[in-house]
């Protein structure tokens, strides 16, 4: 007996014809592979090693004149030179210590003057940082979106299907969450949790981001629960849970999937904002947001390569993911086209 193509296979066949969608899928898959490889420790395990001189420029720009390096300044300037101003430098001792440490470090290992995409303040490879940042940002986006989609779908299913006081309860919760400006809500949760880390960011984004999905899924469930196929399931004795999750859920799953995809993009951007504002991941790891935050001060010095790397990595992923979402929506819901 030949099996008929199911709805997912049919959707895939429609998707296959969308060239742009396919190209975006490939891009997203590459990012996913990078994330997985980085998380597994196959690549960029040494991202935090200080392999180059401070602010080593990209290779195609060529090495900088040695005067630009603060370590060089500290070394070349004679200790007595500053006394000419007649004002004692309050940081003199600290600077001297830093200079000694830097000198000691450079004494033990030779540092590269340039890197393929440049280096940051500590001489870390920007390319490796961007790859490591991809791991953090994409992981946060995916897991937070999955959490938000799970909560939104569960709450929406319960509220839409059960109605009555359960619906009222979730609606009240929804109203509370949406009545606070989003960024304010995120920042206040971050301030309360007050513990930096990837897990915290995921929780913050997931716990505040379910509202949009909730609203859509609730409406879908209200629409579907009065459909005859659900009544028919009741008539054959299917339990409430079975009707909610075996009968209705597959019929609204395309909505969940599109929302999930949409929220990955949204949360990647949110993570960047959070990290930029200093509420995101800790200093021991790197994300695109923390790279942007660091780059803020570098720009004044004309060191543009860190911000360029983070922006480029993010822009490509976000654009590809957004276009993928559109293609997904077209494939899953052909009537909208």
């Amino acid at each position: 007996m030949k099996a008929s193509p199911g709805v997912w296979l049919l959707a895939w066949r429609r998707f296959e014809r969308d060239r742009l969608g396919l190209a975006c899928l490939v891009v997203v898959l590459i990012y996913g592979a990078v994330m997985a490889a980085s998380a597994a420790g196959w690549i960029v395990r040494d991202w935090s090693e200080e392999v180059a001189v401070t602010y080593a420029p990209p290779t195609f720009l060529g090495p900088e004149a040695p005067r630009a390096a603060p370590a060089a300044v500290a070394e070349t300037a004679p200790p007595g030179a500053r006394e000419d101003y007649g004002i004692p430098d309050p940081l003199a001792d600290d600077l001297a210590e830093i200079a000694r440490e830097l000198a000691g470090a450079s004494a033990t290992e030779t540092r590269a003057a340039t890197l393929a995409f440049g280096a940051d303040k500590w001489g870390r490879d920007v390319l490796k940082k961007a790859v490591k940042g991809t791991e953090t940002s994409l992981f946060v986006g995916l897991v937070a979106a999955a959490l938000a989609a799970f909560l939104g779908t569960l709450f929406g299913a319960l509220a839409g299907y059960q109605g009555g006081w359960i619906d009222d309860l979730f609606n009240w919760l929804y109203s509370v969450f949406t009545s606070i400006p989003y960024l304010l809500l995120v920042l206040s949760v971050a301030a309360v949790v007050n513990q930096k880390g990837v897990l915290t960011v995921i929780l913050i984004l997931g716990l505040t981001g379910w509202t949009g999905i909730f609203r859509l899924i609730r409406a879908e469930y209200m629409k579907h629960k009065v459909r005859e196929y659900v009544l028919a399931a009741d008539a054959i004795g299917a339990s409430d849970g079975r009707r909610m999750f075996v009968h209705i859920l597959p019929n609204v799953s395309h909505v969940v999937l599109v929302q999930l995809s949409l929220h990955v993009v949204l949360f990647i951007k949110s993570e960047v904002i959070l990290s930029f504002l200093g509420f995101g991941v800790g200093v021991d790891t790197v994300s695109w947001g923390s790279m942007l935050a660091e780059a803020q001060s570098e720009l004044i010095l004309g060191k543009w390569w860190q911000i360029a790397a983070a922006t480029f990595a993010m822009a490509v992923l976000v654009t590809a993911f957004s276009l993928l979402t559109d293609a997904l929506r077209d494939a899953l819901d052909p009537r909208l086209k």
Partner: protein
Amino acid sequence: MSLLSVRDLAVDFRIDESTTLRAVKGISFDIAERSTVALVGESGSGKSVTALAIMGLLPRENARLHPASRIDYLGRNLLGLPGRELRALRGAEISMIFQEPMSSLNPVFTVGFQIAEALKQHRALPASQARPRALQLLGEVGLAEPQARLGAYPFQLSGGEQQRVMIAMAIACEPKLLIADEPTTALDVTVQRQILELIAGLQARRRMSVLFITHDLSLVGEIADQVVVMRDGEIREQGSVEKIFAAPQDPYTRALLACRPPLDRRPQRLPVIDDFMGGTGPKPGERKRGLRGDEPIILEARGLAKSFYFREGLFGKRELKAVKGASFKVAKGKTLGVVGESGSGKTTVGLLLMRLHKASGGAVLFEGRDLLPLPPKAAYSYKRRIQIVFQNPYASLNPRFTVGQILMEPMQIHGVGSGEAGRRALSLELLDKVGLAADSFAKYPHEFSGGQRQRIAIARALTLRPEVLICDESVSALDVSVQAQLLNLLQDLQDEYAMSYLFISHDLAVVRYMADQVMVMKDGEIVEIAGPDEIYSDPKHPYTRLLLSSMPGRAQQ
């Protein structure tokens, strides 16, 4: 001279890159001035596509007209007209009314505004004159209190009133040709009668022509002068209404006429299209209906009531009594027919019996035991014994399940059959019983036609071997020829399993054919219960009499 002549009309639809479907395969017919032509056919016959082609309303992106096609309106080929001229013609000289009045009217504008707009568009009437004209039109289509209706929004009107408004809009510019595409299909039988009379009256009074499109041949006899019978994009037969009804030439026309349940006798089986197309003709024999009075009662409702509550204002509640104390009995192995118009509570009764809605009062006795107060666990085992087949076969099957999953699920829930293999065997057996091929098992519902889907729904109900089957308008959404097949199937199943049916329908002819006892409902109350022959020959209640007089085709029989 004919007003409109269609010549070699052929329309292709592009399904996807590689497939096209020829919906209309080169048809020709004429509409004479001041005459009514009925275009009759089942779904997929191309009748609506023909109407849309005349109006120039075919979807541009995937419909293609064959270059040889011509539609001449008073000597001008409509198919070659530029868009601007066609628009001027459309609405002014040729206008159209559709099946669903609710979706054809714009919900955010008042009725008066919408009629006046049509007048302003085509007659260039100033607003001061358009309004009195709209009022006059509403009076002409027989709307009560036209002055008050002018300011009403579409949702404030009933389906029949909305269709009257649509007709008023369509005749506003005094068209020469009115195309009515299934204008009464969505309406109750008494309203259907009024709309038919209205269209016939307008046609005579305004000296216009009407192209009346319908699937129901019984309506045609009362309204049309000429009949065109279509099937699969081709014209099977055309001629005067007398000729078509008295001496149909084409076997398909004969089959269409025969597969409606006749009112004067009750054949053992209804003839289906294949009987005629194959040339075998209908099978003889009549079926006896009615109760002897000593049959055991399997299901009984006592004072069954249901109220719905609507929130009104901040704290107020409005009660709608959908069912007001219904009491009836279903005899074992027999059929109780339930007839009534929309809002009569007949569907609610079916849902209450199955506990799909919670009753507000009364009792449902299954073999003497009241089901309503039972806790869900105990009621569960009764779900096996009462099953239901819903009206809309497109909505009642889960689109994400294969037919196999649909059939095996109830058996899994109730532990019917021995293991997966046993259930699979039972499902295949049932598919065969309802006349579907075994390879249906792995297919999805969207791969089947409406009639086939309803067979799947029947098979699903049968998986639990119910003793009572509730058929809630189970054949109403289907073509008449498919209806006949399904009615035969239901009858065969009853003969085989001695099931009892609660047969809910608005179609009096079908109920008369199927039922051993008929119950007439109006506004949530049972107005009359009697045997099928008594109720049709000697109705006691005035409402029953009104229903019967509205039956299409009754005049000819």
